[in-house]
């Protein structure tokens, strides 16, 4: 994470009153979500610039059982050079240092990614703690974090125990995340809530609050493996808790929607959400990430279209 000196969240003592005092009206949230992308329109040069910015916020991800060193090296190469050089030049963006925000892999693939990313500022993020279900033995989950950090991962995407949320066991969730944060050390911690498995939006809000109080650097929506991924409703709910936490503590917490974000238009809508709810700073990679794999290709095609005026073919874009 470059050149953004923000005070890192230290966490705060558990404030259960804040958790209890959570009201989210789902239908009102939905109405806001529906109109978000319709109230703002990002076109032409603005669209190109916003999409370039979106690329810098992508955690370019592969999380499949068949990931091999070769596959991950290809992914990392794409992270270094996410847009075709000729397109970048045509956009006048060749000196903006466009790379993705990070590369996100399983623990075993950390060295493969690092090998390619050496000498860049692109961090490697590892999913951890028994991803995606988070039901492996707790000590192993903590160990897993430590092992990944030891291997060189600078960011750790942990999963929380959904059980604690569904049972309203906030102390347990707080303790769990605190321990994980301690295990992360200097590595930044993104806490995956798996919102698709938490039930109503107010559970999402409460879990977000707990994770921030326990020291999360980012709160993240989903593993990408739940039946429902990052929805705008969930995004609104989580970003609003970030705003509250900042008002309480002055700490700025990052946000990462993940799963199901595939098109440039999706990315723009998420960016609008961030700008409207939290402001411009949350458009930058130190506070905003997309967890995505196929999004980059669509953005690259849109940028190509901006340059040529022609709709682009997928096979003209180098794959990851």
């Amino acid at each position: 994470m470059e050149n953004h000196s923000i005070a890192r969240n230290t966490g705060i003592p558990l404030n259960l009153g804040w958790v209890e005092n959570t009201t989210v009206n789902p239908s009102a949230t939905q109405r806001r979500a529906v109109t978000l992308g319709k109230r703002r329109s990002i076109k032409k040069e603005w669209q190109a610039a916003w999409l370039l910015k979106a690329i810098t916020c992508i955690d370019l991800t592969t999380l499949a059982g068949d990931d091999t060193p070769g596959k991950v090296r290809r992914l990392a190469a794409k992270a270094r050079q996410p847009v075709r050089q000729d397109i970048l030049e045509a956009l006048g963006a060749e000196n903006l240092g466009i790379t993705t925000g990070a590369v996100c892999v399983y623990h075993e693939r950390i060295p493969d990614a690092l090998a390619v990313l050496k000498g860049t500022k692109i961090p490697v993020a590892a999913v951890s703690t028994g991803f995606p279900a988070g039901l492996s033995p707790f000590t192993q989950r903590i160990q897993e974090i430590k092992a990944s950090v030891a291997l060189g991962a600078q960011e750790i995407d942990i999963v929380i125990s959904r059980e604690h949320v569904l049972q309203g066991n906030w102390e347990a969730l707080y303790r769990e995340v605190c321990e994980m944060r301690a295990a992360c050390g200097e590595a930044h911690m993104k806490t995956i809530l798996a919102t698709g498995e938490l039930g109503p939006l107010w559970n999402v809000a409460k879990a977000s609050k707990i994770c921030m109080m326990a020291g999360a650097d980012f709160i993240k929506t989903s593993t990408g493996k739940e039946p429902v991924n990052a929805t705008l409703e969930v995004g609104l709910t989580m970003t609003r808790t970030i705003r509250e936490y900042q008002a309480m503590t002055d700490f700025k917490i990052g946000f990462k929607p993940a799963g199901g974000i595939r098109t440039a238009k999706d990315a723009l809508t998420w960016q609008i959400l961030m700008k409207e709810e939290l402001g411009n700073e949350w458009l930058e990679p130190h506070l905003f990430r997309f967890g995505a794999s196929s999004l980059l290709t669509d953005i690259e095609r849109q940028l190509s279209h901006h340059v040529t005026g022609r709709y682009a073919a997928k096979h003209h874009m180098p794959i990851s």
Partner: protein
Amino acid sequence: MPSIAEIFKTMDYSPAPESAAAAQAWLDDHGRKFDLFINNQWQAPTDATYIEVTAPASGAKLADVANANSADIDKAVKAARKAFKTWSATTGHQRARYLYAIARNIQKHGRLFSVLESLDNGKPIRESRDIDIPLVARHFYHHAGWAQLMATEMAGYQPLGVVGQVIPWNFPLLMLAWKIAPALAMGNTVVIKLAPSTPLTAILFAQILQESGLPAGVVNVVTGGDEAGASITSHPDIDKIAFTGSTPVGAIIRRVTAGTGKKLSLELGGKSPYIVFEDADPDGAIEGLVDAIWFNQGEVCCAGSRLLVQENIADDFLANLRRRMGQLRVGDSLDKSIDMGAVVDPVQYATIDKWVKAGVNEGAAIYQPDIPMPENGCFYPPTLLTNVSPSSTVVQEEIFGPVLVAMTFRTPAEAIQLANNTRYGLAASIWSENINTALEVAHKVKAGSVWINSTNLFDAASGFGGYRESGFGREGGKEGLYEYVRPIWKKRPKPTLDWGENGEPDVKAWSKHTPPRPSTKSSVANGSLPPLDRTSKLYIGGKQARPDGNYNLPILSPDGREIGQVGDGNRKDIRNAVEAAHKARGWADRSPHNRAQILYYIAENLAIRADEFAQRLVDMTGCKKKDAEAEVQQSVERLFTYAAWSDKFGGTVQETTLRGIVVAYHDYLGVIGIACPDEAPLLAFISLLAPAIARGNTVIVIPSEKYPLSATDFYQILETSDLPAGVINIVTGKRDHLTKTLVEHDDVDAMWYFGTAEGSYFVEYLSSSNMKRTWVNYGTARDWSDETQGAGHDFLHESIQVKNIWVPTGVT
């Protein structure tokens, strides 16, 4: 223009203009000059004058439109009258086909309509594109369905005839749709006058009508100013006026149409409360406020313009609101990235500014966010006024602009009290996650539309319209159809008003009454014992009360014998009766079952004394014994009818586009004044008061002036039937003398009058002081013994007002 690299750093929004090319080309195609659409022809205005139409966002001239005068309106009415003959004879299916075609064509030209609407009115293209125009199409689709179903669902009703409609500038095409769709569905023909500043989409609509093949004269679209509007509202060959606009103009129309037999529906102003409880979703409520008061620049009759926020969360809430206001973008109406466009014209701008300055002068704290404002055009910034109270002018008056006033409350009861502390009653928003709070407040707030955890939701299937001085009648839903029909048995009332010597209505002469003096004629034979005095008192607050003036009226038999005396009520008796009726408002909280039981009990007690009541009718009216017995019997039956209706007319669930439940709740009106006719003195009395109290109203009844003794005899029945004190109050005396006080009373919610044509005129005329609902007979008697005429659906309809409560659902 900044480079991509620069934007990459600033991450600003940019203007995103919607192209106006097609709309401008359409204007050019017509030489930017539009005539009147009469009889499916474009006709130049008689005196060849035109009105300039401009774009409020830029001030640029868009077009000239005809300025109709009264001769033009007359032409349009004649065309509509001619077309009515064939149009009213079409089948429901035929009309459905036309309405369906109109809906389809609106959708096909949806973008052109939206762009034109935003150009002309100044509203954001997002709103015209995503809200106005889709609602317009939906309205025609929905009413195509009502046309299709009219024969069965509106059995017993017929179209009215020619309908005159006058619409405002804030939702030009949507208001047109709300007016025209139900009118056509029910078989009426239309003359509609557009607001002079925003006529363009309606002109395009007229072209759509041609495209849809609508027969000539069925819809006539005219542009013009005050003369055209006044010509419509006063035109003798128009059968109904539908108006949306300000309360003062609505009051004028009420007076202009008084006594003419024209039906009238008015959708007027508002100062709608937006209530936020401590347990509300604060972010949801703040986004809701954006949609409540900054939607359409606040130029919305139902705008949530009066924020009531619970005191213990007010500071945080208002701080968040101010932050949110700083995110609003104000700009050109065709910019897709704005939240607020231009207000409609410099006059409206000045009006808004005047109110805001008045507020500040009275001590309000003003907040306007530091956001970029366009340099030219009619743009008013989003404005929040705090440090105001119910006594502040800006809290009482409708500003009709992007101005929110904010106050606090302590408890739900106080929230209800503050919410209802207004002359208006159009809408209310309630924000609470507590179902008890939300539903209780929804139930108690006086408003035609109530939105729980939401705001400004509209749909063709849900009637929109006001309580109190926000008007009467509903637009949308089945409840809206009744504004465009008349019972089949009923002819269009065409009262002839006889103003006597001076030829002018004279309210003093009409209501004049000098108390009686002793008769010099003795009705007692010389030397014989006088009969026991039988002087009825008044019945107020459950007690027999001596008339305040201490005068009595002799009641004579047909052959001139005095058969009793009744109290000669005066204005103080009316005042007391209204107060008693208000004290008895707990009646509405009784269970419907309980109200039914009491009506049955009244029927029971009347039946026991049937002979006595029949004899009284014979004595008073000289009717045949057999007829008198039949009238009593029918009165008992009618009490049964409305006992039955006590728990069977609560409302319906509306099938709108909302994910959730929309309840059309049949609310009571409140306190109703009823002036009874002389015909069928017992049956008419019962037929009127029974539906009113069955539906939870409390009443002040003026019995037949000529034959009041059936009503005064009824006191004893009421006293033995468990009826709570004050639900029925009876004031005998001179009907019109008493009616005047009752109809002028600002705390009476409705006035039913069954007397003369002239009296009907005055009732309608005087009702404009608080826009109370009226139901008058224009001097035409109905056959009270006929089930349709004496106990038809209209009795229930007149006893309620529809409140639509929107309850969104969903947990994820």
